[in-house]
C-alpha cells in the first residue's frame, strides 16, 4: 500500500460521494418546469411558412438533428471521418517492411 494507492482511493471516494449526493438533488423524474424552446419546435415542425421557421417534416427529432441543429451534425461527420482516417493510418504497412 504505497502512497499512490491511498491517494487514488481517497479521490475515488470523494467523487463517488459527490455523484450519489448529486443524484438525490436533481428534480423529480418526469416533471419539467421550463420547456419553451422544445414547445416552440414541436408546434412549428409541420408548417411550411418562412416566417415561423417551419421545417415541413412529420418527425420532430430528424428536423432538430438536420434543420434546427445542422451544425452539430456537421461536426459529428467530421469526427467520424477523423476516426476512420486515424484507424487506416495506424494499420498501414510500408511495402518494404
Amino acid at each position: 500500500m504505497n502512497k499512490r494507492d491511498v491517494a487514488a482511493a481517497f479521490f475515488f471516494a470523494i467523487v463517488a460521494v459527490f455523484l450519489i449526493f448529486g443524484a438525490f438533488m436533481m428534480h423529480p423524474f418526469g416533471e419539467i418546469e421550463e420547456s419553451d424552446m422544445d414547445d416552440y419546435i414541436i408546434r412549428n415542425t409541420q408548417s411550411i411558412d418562412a416566417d415561423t421557421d417551419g421545417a415541413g417534416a412529420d418527425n420532430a427529432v430528424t428536423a432538430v438533428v438536420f434543420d434546427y441543429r445542422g451544425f452539430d451534425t456537421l461536426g459529428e461527420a467530421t469526427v467520424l471521418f477523423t476516426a476512420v482516417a486515424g484507424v487506416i493510418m495506424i494499420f498501414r504497412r510500408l511495402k518494404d517492411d
Partner: protein
Amino acid sequence: MTEMSKIVRTIAGVTFPFAVIFGLYVIAHGHLTPGGGFQGGAIVASACAMILVAFGSKWTMEKIKEKRLSVLESLGAIGFIGLAFIGLFTSGVFFKNFLVGNNYLFGNEALGKGDIFTAGVLPFMNFAVGLKVIAGLFVIVLVMAYATTMMKEGKK
C-alpha cells in the same frame, strides 16, 4: 480471422439482402418514422460485419478493396456539405432548407398522413449521412480484422 463452415456461409449469404433492404428502408423514411441516417447506417454496417465474420477477412479484403470504400465515404461527406453550401448561395443563410414551400420537388405540406414528398432537403441529407456511416463503420471493422490476421500469420 478464418472462415466458418458451409452452413454458416450459406445462411449468411441468404440473410444479407434482407438486412440491407431493411436498413435502406430505415434510411429512406427518416423524415416520417423514427430512424434516419445514423440509425439505418448502423443497421447496414452490422449486416456487412456479419458477412465479414462468416467469410473470413482475407476473402472479403480481396473482393472489396478499402480504397473504393474510402471513395464512397468521401462522396457522402461532399454531398452533405454541398447541400449546405447550395443553401448559402440561394438564400444567404448556411444550412437553409431551400426546398420547403415550392411545388416541384419535396415541398408538400406535412399533414400527418405520411406523405414521402415532404420535408425539403432532409431526405437528401439522410442519404448522404447514411452512406458516410455505412462506409466508415465497415472500413474500421475490415481494416482491424485484416491487420490482425496478417500479424498472426507473420509471427508463425
